[in-house]
């Protein structure tokens, strides 16, 4: 999990989180026992459909302003350390 979430945990933390997550998931056993076969999932509390934006251009941000917030940049681009693999 930590790997997928790009976090590194000390051994101590790992033990603590494992215990705590187990407790939380244990508490969630109350819903595991429920019969929900006839229910459809609610991803969202709203019944909205087809919310659109017209294809009209809006102002973009100033590059200098955006890059001033970046940890590192070069030649108008965000600079990142070497990437070890292609995008998936």
């Amino acid at each position, binding site marked *: 999990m930590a790997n997928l979430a790009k976090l590194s945990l000390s051994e101590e933390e790992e033990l603590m989180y494992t215990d705590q997550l187990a407790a939380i998931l244990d508490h969630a056993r109350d819903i595991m026992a429920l019969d929900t076969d006839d229910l459809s999932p609610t991803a969202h509390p709203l019944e*909205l459909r*087809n919310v*659109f934006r017209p*294809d009209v*251009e809006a102002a973009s941000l100033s590059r200098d302003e955006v890059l001033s917030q970046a940890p590192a940049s070069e030649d108008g*681009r965000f600079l990142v350390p070497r*990437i070890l693999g292609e995008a998936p």
Partner: protein
Amino acid sequence: MADDAVSSGGADGVLPGWEIVVGLEVHCELKTRTKLFCGCANSFGQEPNTSICPVCLGLPGSLPVINKQAVELAIRIGLSLNCTVDKSIFHRKNYFYPDMPKDYQVSQYEKAINENGFLELPLSKKVVRIERAHIEEDTGKSMHVGGDGGRIHGAVHSLVDYNRAGIPLVEIVSAPDLRSAEEAREYVTELRSILVASAASDGKMEEGSLRVDANVSVRRLGVEEFGTRCEIKNLNSLRSLVRAIGYEARRQVALIESGEKVVQQTRHWNEDQGVTTAMRSKEEAYDYRYFPEPDLVPLEPSAEWVTEIRSHIGLLPASRRERLTSLFNGVSSGPVYDQIVTAVGLGLDDLVAGAVAKGAEPRLALARATNEVASDLGNLEMLTVDNFTEAIRMESEGKLSATQAKTVLGKMLESGANAREVAKSLGFEAMDSTVIEGLVDQVIRSSPKEWERFSSGEDQLAGFFVGQVMKLSKGKADGKIVTSILRSRRS
């Protein structure tokens, strides 16, 4: 495995005893004014990081709103590919990568807007099933610095430009119905024509508005079960597509024949070396943790809207081909049909049909369009249907020789001038037939032996005499007239 083992496996796509199975995922960029979820311009070749905003940069607190035109164009694609257009939702595909501003991609996963369509290949007449054509956002682009030729491996660091992030894409996923690299090429060619004809995309592979991933597997002829497949990424041209599929199929066959197994993995096509290399294997595959995108609401295009969108779709390639074949007694195979497919594929069918309607000779118009005009497509707008018709007429009436007609068309495409003016400026006056007769007699006199052979029935020598006359006339004589004079002299 040694590379020679792979390359000695046979010619592209032809592996005796084996069958290639290919399914394609084509990412097509939609021709909208703005991005999928924000108002930043969707345009090519801007200064880096100048078409970005809080939304496409994934700044904290920003939220996406769907571009209606992107949905309309996606539906056009679906309808053009005979898909069912239905309700759909967006999911988040979660993975970390620096060109992904939010570290998730918004895409349609469980339910695509277009599903279960098909596309018929014009030459092989094969029907390829389309599983889905879904909407998703593009990522930014990284530039790799300090490595070998800008490649990611060995780079010291990378520079990211988010102008492309959030550009609307439709990903068109075919069933594994293709059986050769050539069929794959035909599929992509036809798909591109459809995308261009429906005005959903400009279909420019070289600018990245069409990108292809190929799922390739092999199986022994007669075996029904599919082999283990590999997905090849980074196919940016038809040439790469054909080469990569050929290479990959040979690699897989060589593996199996040497007793090894094909491992399911994603492979990267290296254009320079002509090989595919493993990006990662299935075991280390990502867990994308797809879940419904809570910042967007479902799409539910109404029947009326879909009908309206359908009415915006122009004439599609299949109908365009029909329009041309009807000019040639409904021809459905052979060289003329091939030329029709080419003409439609290159968007020259309006020109041919227009010229024929104005009285141009159909065969000649088709031939000149798919050869001379096709070789200078960049200047197509310089050529009006009227001027093209005139050039074809002058040639069929013998006022221009074939060679002259080709030259004239070439100049017309460059200058936009009409055929008569160009012919005149080049000194291409039709050569009088009495002058040609004189030239023919001159050649007969200077080649008595050849003439004797020709006279005694060696027909293939006609070419020799035509060639000689052409040389003397500096290409101004019409070959057809020369041939008929030769025949009359022989008898």
